[in-house]
């Protein structure tokens, strides 16, 4: 018994003396801060793009008449509140404790579900915005300058940006689907073990 205890204590000493990487955790802190900065920049970019869209749409709405103005003002409101909603949802999914396996997986699952939802909205929203922009530019009661500008925005550059955004949304949707599948597989494995 005494010999077993001595063996175990020797193994403990050897284990604790071992390091798989330098003890200096500066790179870990840097990585976490980089991740935080990335998240902040993403949110800022989202807010700026939404506000930019809202400003352009508001300027068009101001010179449009009838149902065109109504649709444009509705889009201004949507562009203004969408970043508020998505940021609040994101922050809510980040506030989990994650100090049990179930809580941690639940947190990952909520984040993945939200990411999937936002990516799907992006996949639908892009082409929808294109169709709506073309319809307003063609049939809407807008000033000639705004009509030209609207068609210009949906020109080749606009289409390239839209295509890139759509591909990115597709990539994100697949990534979140993979995460959800992995989590489901882990849950199943746990149930089998239990």
């Amino acid at each position: 018994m005494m010999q077993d205890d001595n063996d175990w204590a020797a193994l403990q000493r050897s284990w604790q003396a071992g390091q798989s990487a330098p003890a200096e955790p500066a790179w870990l802190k840097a990585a976490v801060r980089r991740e935080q900065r990335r998240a902040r920049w993403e949110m800022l970019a989202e807010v700026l793009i939404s506000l930019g869209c809202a400003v352009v749409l508001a300027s068009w709405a101001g010179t449009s008449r009838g149902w065109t103005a109504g649709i444009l003002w509705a889009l201004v409101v949507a562009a203004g509140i969408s970043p508020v909603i998505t940021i609040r949802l994101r922050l809510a999914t980040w506030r989990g404790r994650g100090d049990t396996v179930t809580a941690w997986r639940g947190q990952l699952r909520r984040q993945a579900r939200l990411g999937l939802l936002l990516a799907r909205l992006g996949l639908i929203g892009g082409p929808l915005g294109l169709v709506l922009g073309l319809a307003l530019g063609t049939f809407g009661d807008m000033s000639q300058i705004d009509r030209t500008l609207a068609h210009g925005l949906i020109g080749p550059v606009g289409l390239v940006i839209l295509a890139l955004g759509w591909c990115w949304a597709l990539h994100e949707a697949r990534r979140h689907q993979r995460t959800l599948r992995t989590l489901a597989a882990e849950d199943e494995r746990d149930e089998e073990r239990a």
Partner: protein
Amino acid sequence: MREGLFDQALDGHGGLIARIVSAHERDPALREDLRQDVALALWRALPGWREECGLRTFVARVAHNVCVSHQRRAVREPPRGELSPQLDAATELPDAVAIDNDLRRRLSAAVADLPAALREVAVLGLEGFTNQEIVDTLGLSSGTVATRLSRAKAMLRERMGQAS
């Protein structure tokens, strides 16, 4: 507040995180990713720490949870006999240091070969956690912890004996 606590957790328990991660993932590249995931998880979880357990236990709990969620990657079989550059250098070191490094390498391999249920208990036991701290960290019953720890110790002794 969170910044200070995060620094304290990483400065004080960076080695603990590294060892828990290395017990679950032997591929060096994936291990680095996993360490980063643990650090991120810790950053998110720290505001929820209510000091109902020690910081070390909390850090181990979060690290363990993240590692469990990465089991898909962890179960990937690594190439056998792979040595880290640090351990490769052992051949050029004085005998005592080389022996220590060899023991450490064999112990690492023996821990990684344990079944997952025993490995998670063994890692915390080797870290010097008491049975109660292991119970708090893993959320298992004290009986289960005692049984698994005893089996893990026996298997480790046997494997270390065979390897020497």
